[in-house]
């Protein structure tokens, strides 16, 4: 219940934050909404020496309609995503995934940037970003770069962000025919498996949650979808998957869920 001691910094700009991360080195962690990091600290599974709280940097908040895509500040909360009419119409995969994260109080604090940087294999937003072929902006002491979704997620709780880089913004294309289907036991639980599906005419992009150490593109299913055949695509959704086995689901069951949920997601996306 009680975190270990740490030093606390509350920079007012991204540049200051990045500078603090560099000067504090490996012992520093970024604090955004805190809903992944603080529970781990309370269980003493994480014990950063310094927390760099970016919560005061108001420029990192908000959803901007930039024509063909949305620019979303890293501190935009799940509640903001779920409640955005703009996203609900033009990028329902993101809105629906955000609406299913945790519970209302968690959604009032947890942020898109935090969820992506955490890269939990059972988190919903990484697969959404991959399915949307989105990208993130990373700012560090050495400058700003763009990281495409396919290069961001490297494995279990691991991203390609450098230790002194801050994920500041997320860009996702508009995708009116898209959705996220999550499967869990209780309403507030993490996903046992989830499917983000983005349909664009005859083609689809499909990414899976909970079946690997990082979100997995269902490429065989995407190829099989060509022309709009959701059933064909779903049948191939588990091809090449090597999912984990645990109390919530065996590898076989997760493969099965990948197929079932892919069908549901594609049908909903097409209908939407």
């Amino acid at each position: 219940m009680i975190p270990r001691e740490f030093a606390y910094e509350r920079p007012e700009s991204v540049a200051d934050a990045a500078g603090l991360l560099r000067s504090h080195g490996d012992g520093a962690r970024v604090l955004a909404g805190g809903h992944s990091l603080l529970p781990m600290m309370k269980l003493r599974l994480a014990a950063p020496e310094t927390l760099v709280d970016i919560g005061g940097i108001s420029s990192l908040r908000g959803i901007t309609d930039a024509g063909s895509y949305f620019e979303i500040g890293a501190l935009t909360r799940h509640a903001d995503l779920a409640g955005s009419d703009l996203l609900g119409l033009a990028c329902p995969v993101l809105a629906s995934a955000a609406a299913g994260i945790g519970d209302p109080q968690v959604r009032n604090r947890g942020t898109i940037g935090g969820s992506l940087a955490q890269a939990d294999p059972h988190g919903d937003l990484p697969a959404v970003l991959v399915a949307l072929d989105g990208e993130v902006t990373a700012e560090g002491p050495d400058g700003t770069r763009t990281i495409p979704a396919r290069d961001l997620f490297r494995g279990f709780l691991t991203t390609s962000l450098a230790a002194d880089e801050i994920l500041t913004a997320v860009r996702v294309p508009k995708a009116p025919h898209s959705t996220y289907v999550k499967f869990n036991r209780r309403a507030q639980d993490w996903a046992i498996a989830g499917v983000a599906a983005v349909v664009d005419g005859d083609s689809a992009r499909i990414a899976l949650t909970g079946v690997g150490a990082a979100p997995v593109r269902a490429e065989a299913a995407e190829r099989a979808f060509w022309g709009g055949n959701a059933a064909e695509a779903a049948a191939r959704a588990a091809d090449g998957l090597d999912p984990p086995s645990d109390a919530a689901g065996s590898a076989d069951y997760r493969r099965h869920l990948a197929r079932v949920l892919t069908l549901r997601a594609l049908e909903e996306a097409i209908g939407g």
Partner: protein
Amino acid sequence: MAATVEQGKGIGVAALRKEDRKFLTGRGRYVDDLKLPGMLHMAIVRSQFPHAAITGIETSAAMAMPGVTAVLTGDDLEFAAGVPCASNPTGQMVHPTRPPLAKGRVRHVGEPIAVVIAADRYTARDAADAVEVGYAELPAVLGVEAALADGAPRVHEELDSNVGLVLAHRTDGVDEAFARADVVCEATIRNQRLIHVPIETRGVVADWNPASDELVVTSSTQVPHFLRTFLAIVCGVSEAKVRAIAPDVGGGFGAKLNAYAEEFIAAAASRKVGAPVKWIEERSEAMLATCHGRAQIAHMSLAATKDGKVLGMRAHYVQDYGSYLQMLTPLISQLTFLMSPGAYAIPEVDVKVTNVYTNTVPTDALRGAGRPEATHAIERSMDMLAGELGMSRTEIRRRNFPSEFPFTSAIGLQYDSGDYGKTLDRLLELSDDRETFARRREEAAARGKLLGRGLSTWVEVCGFVPSDVARNALGLTPGGWESSTVRMHPTGKATVITGTSPHGQGHATSWSQIVETELGVPFDDVEVIHGDTAFAPYGLGTYGSRSLAVGGTAVHLAATKVRDKARLVAAQMLEASPDDLDFSGGVFAVKGSPDKRTTIQEVAFRAWQAFGMPEGVTPGLDETVFFDPPNCVFPFGAHGCEVEVDRDTGKVEITSYIAVDDCGNVVNPMIVDGQVHGGVVHGIGQALYEEAEYDSGGQLVTGTLVDYLIPSAADVPHIETHRTVTPSPTNPLGVKGIGEAGTIASTPAVVSAVCDAVGARDLDMPLQPMKVWDAIQKGGAR
């Protein structure tokens, strides 16, 4: 039931609860809300291994931290006795010794090894992490099968094996019954290990005053009086110097029906450091160190005729005790044993319970405590038997209900009253007929959903317990009576002091209703005091659905005694014979002269003034009654559950739940319904979501509320409640317990429905989607 005039908020009225306002406004007083001058905080260093010898404890780094007052180990705190167990079913059972702080050996992950006392809880926690314990690992015993295997390592070296106790009862004709049966139905049914999870964890503030040598312990407990006695015994002090207080308690469910190591440690530590000591359990600590429940396997065998009459039952239960005996550990499977035939007149039985030690947290009472296990095993068995006979699940039950009450089971319990067919009839009236259900099932199938429905017809034993039974049949150390004082004040208000110790059950409301009915003192003029051993006559606390049947009866009897005395005083005041007085609505009136009257309040004032009292009548209106029940009570009912199973994922949704219960007369129907709602959802939690799991290394896998899944509002259905009323002959109120009923009834009803949906014979709980999906694949479901 006594002849009474129903008043505004007397017995039978759904009176709103008088205890609510403080909770609604954040003014409840739970143990963690207590701050005492100079109070220090305790954190506990716990075993990281399931079985190990302690080779050393290095405390110097912790002691050196600013704000740390003391680091105490088993060598620093002396106790006069170990953690107590108050149950010895055979009288011959060996109770392994367990010092509150480990001495040289630990037997489960989470066992207390050392404590840190510090100025605040943050410092205490940091310092606890700085204590280094050296361990030499010993082979651990995990799971009852492993514990019973030849050559298994032993949890307790002083015992010959890991078997703690075997209970057995066999009637003479059981072999013959099986020999002449047309069918024998066998099954192995697992009742998984559970964790209680009251939303408030345990916590204690111990305040040992070095000047007066008085010990005041405020603890989140269901049993303050037991706690006081055990504190005196374990800490080796005069019980007269010990005061135990249960403040507002945030749920119990059996988790707080105990006297725990931490309560004794906090008391001893307070004496050692000369300051009040507070310990508040963290949730992940609670998962590791508070008792668990259930953890039982039933091997069932029913012998029946082809027309569904059960001739005999063989039941062999294997109970996982965990590593030690807590307060009532042996009682729990004993209750399973006693209720093994459930709601059925089974003439011949062969029942055995093998109780086994393992290197896990001790198991003890969890809402229902042994009766849910018995009910689940017999109800599932009846379903399976019906399947083998091609008979409906309702019909097989009807054919085996007892026909007359009181009914004495083959185990020897006397079920006090009942009409099991009546609750089943009511359930069927409330449910769709076969044709409608079949049509709906087809419609659901078109949506990819498998519809199923199930039921249970349950009975339990509760209202614990006649003291002779406690001693002679159950082997309990304490008796089973309850006490109450009813006191009239000179101003006409009343105080009830009760030995029960509520933690959500609404005793202040229900006991006030009883007093209003008996004395005519308005509900709002009655105050109820509980939970403080300094005020109350000795009581036994709240557990086992006993409070109303035993404690409520004590209130009723004390109020009756007050009324009887008031009648004598009133007669003197009205210059009439006591026999010539009518009493109604708080008014004594002379028969035939209704204007010659006086109120109970006026009588109370006169009894306080105490002049001109009748010959032999003492001053005051203040009566205490100790009530020892002549029998237990046996509430019963029929629960029906309907589910939709997602054919493609195996996920279960309960779409309808109907409870028809009979708990005799009802004091407050709103509170009774609330108890049923909570109990049913607790059982749904067991049926669908909850399981405490250890890995092969003896580590608890489900150590937080992320992994141990208790249901939220979004995960459970609307619960429909109905009642029939069959008064109990056991007590003058005609009441039975209801706090555990829902938990007892619901697991078999849910499993019955899911098995019906997927075409499975039986499934072990919890019914997580993967398991149900596997069953669909195997079963060729509809």
